[in-house]
């Protein structure tokens, strides 16, 4: 879902870049004023970011179609909370873009907005809500991963659709990510479920 250079109109690229940079600045300010909490979470933040980077390199291609792999937004939000989760995904996406040309420089705002902001916030919110209602970690993680990827894919479709005044990107990206989101959900649910059993104290919601 990494948008390359040339896929977005300058207006959409510019607006998403402005929105994302503004939000990241606010989050960095907010987080740097709470040094104690950051100090406690920085090791987990680093391991999580490295883990998501590596997990994204392990994609299982489906013949003639697409690939199954973890994007990680929901996982990041659940494990370190929404603000650090957004920073973790932003770090991964920046390294992917700047060092490996995975995603375009002009599309970095949109890519962070979709996978790093919408994916994280949706995943975090859905997990909290589902956990409050069901008290089931795996189910909540599954729903969080599924909706996180679905909404991130849909946002990507809307940006491309607005760029070229076409409804096609939304029709393609939306349904595809509803299906791919099931895999995101399975992985998110399993990882969160595993961590909740092994080291319950590191999970952000507890």
């Amino acid at each position: 879902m990494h948008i390359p250079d040339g896929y977005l109109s300058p207006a959409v690229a510019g607006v998403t870049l402005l929105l994302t940079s503004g939000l990241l600045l606010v989050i960095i300010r907010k987080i740097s004023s709470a040094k104690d909490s950051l100090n406690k979470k920085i090791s987990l933040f680093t391991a999580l970011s490295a883990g998501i980077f590596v997990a994204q390199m392990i994609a299982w291609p489906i013949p003639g179609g697409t690939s199954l792999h973890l994007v990680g937004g929901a996982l990041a939000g659940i494990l370190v909370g929404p603000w650090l989760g957004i920073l973790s995904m932003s770090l991964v996406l920046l390294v992917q873009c700047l060092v490996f040309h995975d995603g375009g420089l002009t599309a970095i705002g949109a890519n962070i907005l979709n996978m790093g902001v919408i994916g994280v916030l949706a995943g975090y919110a859905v997990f909290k809500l589902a956990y409050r209602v069901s008290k089931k970690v795996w189910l909540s993680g599954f729903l969080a991963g599924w909706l996180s990827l679905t909404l991130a894919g849909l946002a990507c479709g809307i940006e491309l659709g607005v760029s070229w005044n076409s409804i096609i990107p939304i029709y393609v990206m939306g349904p595809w990510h509803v299906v791919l989101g099931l895999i995101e959900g399975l992985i998110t649910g399993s990882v969160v479920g595993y961590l909740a059993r092994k080291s319950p104290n590191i999970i952000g919601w507890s």
Partner: protein
Amino acid sequence: MSSRKTLLTLFILLLLSPVFGVILAEGLGYHEPLDIVAEELGLSELEFTWTPFKDYAVPGLPEWLGYIICGALGVLVIVSVGFIVKALIRR
């Protein structure tokens, strides 16, 4: 999980990654929904780059090896950022 265990897990995943990211991806003709959109709308990627490691490859090395090295490089960059932030907090 201890940091040693985490690093070991990451290392094993890195060694496995070319099986998926290079070998299976090529064998099965990998493309993603975004590529379908690009085809439908006739979009093409701009032909300029700023890094020698484009698409997780190292010039002159076989694809699978370059993929592993790029994975390790990415992890190194992320871990370094983590260390710098840690040092800044404790200053």
